[in-house]
């Protein structure tokens, strides 16, 4: 599904991504771990088209999207959420999601008919809101939601783009602890039904161990480890990088 080959990215003198290569298959959920400043969000930005690499290639379904602008990548099936929630605060919750549906259906540049009269798009948007338990807030402004619901809406918007490859940057940060697993269950069920390949950046090891089929660890812009969660977490170098300790028992999974 997604292949990243020998990717490099620098900001001035700082080399943030250094020769990163990996592949993610259809229906696979991969967790990306790493300490602060490891380059995780930069990597997500490179894949989503928010940034462009200095070197290397990104392939989606075998097609080179390395220099494709974001709208082109979205058309080809990439979607993302954001670590710091990014919504349209002055639009209703329904419009936040319906805009994504219009994008998928190629209806964004239509004018004359009111958005609300696009019944299929509206029904699809409501369906997404139902899946993420946000339907009751459909007429609220995006800015009016609680922080946790904003985060869920952010993910719902990415999901509404009906992606083949989904990038989730800390999808449960800001969500109440009791709700985290419920949110993850919803996300995993939804992406599982579509067969979406998913890359999740997550710091919560319980979530990683419960939902990820594979774990990649990024440190100083390089892939330190890539494999099954248990094996990777047993790795001494990984433990030193993630937890600053070398004892195998220090890992929580």
């Amino acid at each position, binding site marked *: 599904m997604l292949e990243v080959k020998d990717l490099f990215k620098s900001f001035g003198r700082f080399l943030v991504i250094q020769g990163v290569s990996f592949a993610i298959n259809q229906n696979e959920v991969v967790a990306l771990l790493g300490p602060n400043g490891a380059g995780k969000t930069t990597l997500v930005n490179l894949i*989503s088209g*928010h940034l462009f690499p200095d070197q290397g290639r990104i392939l989606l379904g075998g097609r080179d999207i390395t220099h494709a*602008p*974001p*709208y082109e990548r*979205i*058309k080809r099936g990439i*979607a*993302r959420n*954001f670590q710091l929630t*990014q*919504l*349209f*605060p*002055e*639009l*209703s*919750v329904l*419009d936040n999601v*319906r*805009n*994504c549906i*219009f*994008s*998928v259906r190629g*209806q*964004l*540049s*239509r*004018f*004359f*008919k*009111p*958005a*609300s*009269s*696009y019944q299929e*798009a509206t029904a699809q948007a409501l369906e997404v809101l139902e899946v993420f338990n946000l339907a009751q807030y459909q*007429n*609220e*402004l*995006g800015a*009016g939601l609680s922080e946790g619901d904003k985060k869920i809406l952010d993910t719902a*918007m990415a999901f509404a*783009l009906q992606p083949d490859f989904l990038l989730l940057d800390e999808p449960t940060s800001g969500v109440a602890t009791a709700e985290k697993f419920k949110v993850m269950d919803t996300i995993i069920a939804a992406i599982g039904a579509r067969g979406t390949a998913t890359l999740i950046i997550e710091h919560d090891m319980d979530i990683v161990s419960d939902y990820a089929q594979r774990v990649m660890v990024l440190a100083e812009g390089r892939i330190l480890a890539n494999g099954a969660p248990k094996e990777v977490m047993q790795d001494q170098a990984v433990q030193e990088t993630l937890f600053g300790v070398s004892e195998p028992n220090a890992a929580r999974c």
Partner: protein
Amino acid sequence: MTRYLRTPRAAVYAGVFLGLLLLPHFVDAYHLTLVETGLSLAIMALGLNLLLRYTGVLSFGIGAYFASGAYAVGLLYMYLPQYFSFELSMLAALAASAAVSALFGFVCVRHTRIFFSILTLALSMLLFAVLEKAYYYTGGSDGIRVPIPTFFGYQFEGMRRFAFLSGPYYYVVLLVFSAATLLMLAIVNSPFGKALQATRDNELRAEMIGVRVKRFRWYAFVIAGTFSGLSGGVWSFVNGHITPEICSWVFSGEVVYMVLLGGFMIFEGPIVGALLFTYLRLYAVAWTEYWMLIVGATLVILVLLLPGGVTGGLYRLIERLTPKARPKAGASV
């Protein structure tokens, strides 16, 4: 469009339209021409507000496109008098303003905030200089006279200008204004309008849901420019004479003032603002030579006491009086 006809807002619109349609029976010819001026300027104010309220960028050069429309009419009369008719004038005004706004917009939409505003101002002043200095082609600071046109071959022979303006032309302005208002209402509520509001709210997120932000902003710029051109075309017949002043930043500033006066957060705000401004300026000028002081003081009072403009204040009052009628999210468009 039929959906609007079922909403209470549509009933208000229909009532206002009916009121305006019957206005010639209740006010004298002089006030009718003032309303006519206000309605023609309102088309431009709606265009400016598409940029300010719905796209999140403030243009200080909207006069350039108004002037493009007005000068297209003037130049048509000057160089091709045999083709001088209302319908061809409107086509010329729309084409000229669309072309100029497409060109200027291509430069401006690459920037936002103060950079966008300054660029729009600079480009409008560039056009102002051309209109003023190219005396042999544009009449320079003397401008161009715009006589009564023919309407689909019909000539208003022997009709005095004032009688034409307070008679048949009022209905023409009302028709063009109504069509422009309905079109703008459709645009801001359409998927395109929602996408524009998305770029205003969060450019990064808009880009990441597939909106081509700069292109959409450019579309909005051209639509706003074309509305202004239409406004300039219609207004040129009301005024009967066009000069480069309509392209200056002072005139563009007045349009920003109209939008703020009426209330830029509400769709109808700019219309109310254009009508109020026409009257406010007239009475202020008649009252004192320091009329700009009055206009300036009103702006300060507005910003401090009524940031939502006249319509914003009015809506807030209605909301307080009828709490149950509070509009739902997104209803303020």
